[in-house]
């Protein structure tokens, strides 16, 4: 130890943590509280985000592959795209083509600051979109017979 810290701490009436001087004792106390809040919040949101997103976007009614496909259909405004799973291992970033390469259906207002043109997806709305499309396709298939 280069110099003794004894002269700068533990001089107050109540014992301060090592390294905390009386002048900053209050600030350090509040920083500690803030850090505990961040710690708890990070853990809670870390643990809840994945299940909460899964529920919002239709799991378990839709499988993950179906959610992936439905999100793609919204993203590219194209009912024919499907989530390819498993994707070839030589795909990005290892040189292969990305999933959405050459797509031409996405709607944007192009400009220096592009503006996308897809709607907001509501709570479990992907299920309704999915089921309506299936029903539509079945009706189309049934019609010619």
């Amino acid at each position, binding site marked *: 130890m*280069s110099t*003794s*810290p004894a002269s700068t701490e533990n001089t107050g009436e109540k014992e301060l943590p090592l390294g905390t001087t009386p002048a900053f004792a209050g600030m350090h106390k509040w920083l500690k509280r803030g850090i505990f809040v961040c*710690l708890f*919040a990070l853990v809670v949101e870390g643990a809840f985000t994945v299940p909460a*997103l899964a529920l919002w976007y239709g799991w378990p009614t839709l499988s993950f592959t179906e959610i992936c496909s439905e999100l793609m259909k919204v993203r590219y405004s194209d009912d024919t795209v499907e989530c390819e799973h498993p994707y070839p291992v030589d795909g*990005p*970033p290892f040189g292969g083509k990305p999933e959405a390469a050459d797509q031409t259906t996405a709607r944007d207002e192009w400009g220096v600051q592009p503006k996308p043109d897809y709607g907001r997806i509501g709570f479990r709305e992907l299920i309704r979109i999915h089921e309506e499309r299936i029903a539509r396709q079945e009706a189309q298939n049934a019609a010619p017979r």
Partner: protein
Amino acid sequence: MNLPTFTRRRASADTAKTTATSSVTYDQHHEQSRAAQRHADIWLTIGTALMGTFVLGFIGLPIFLRGVWLQRQAQKAGLSVRPIMVTLIGYLVVLDAFLNSIGWILDLGASHTLITRVFFTAWGNFVDNGYFWHYNELWIGGSSAPGEKGWEVTLIFTVFPMRVAAAIAFLQMKRWGHQWLTVTCWFGVVIWVGYVVNMTMYADIRFDGTVLPVVGWWLYDIFYITPFLAIPYLHTVNREIFSD
């Protein structure tokens, strides 16, 4: 005298030379302190590792808190262990760096796995459409938001590893750990200002059609300000407690 553990080698050598009589008690005290700190660190490290996985955070948090409690008990018993604040800041900065890195590394290197395509685009659609808009259309895959890949590569390969290294040295109560943690926490200010301005410039991409735009993003991301909370502490802590 309540000598901190990190001066062990030099201090014990000095003590051995000068005061042979008191060295026994000092050594005992030192051994007990070191063992107590190590015991607490095992719990703290396992807890942080689990919290770093996002989904297993609920298992990690009680383990981490037990580590903090063990360290407090050691402190109360008069042993020379790290101040609680140093422990909290050190481990939380590591956690913050890991959580950020995991997300961005997956976007860079695993953009076509099912889990990334479901949860990144879903998260994006919910709070930041930068992770939904034209996702997996860029040749490298992942987010196509302007500027995003620049931030990912820069931060994954510079600030976050520097921050983890600094935090580990900080937890070992080394002087360079304190200095570099100060540097890399100030880097955090650069990151936040740069990232938020970039998002704002392309706000339509980020927040058009987003379920919870702007407010949702801030609600989710505000808890990553731990490195900011470290800055005032790092500038006001008595630097003499960190050894050269």
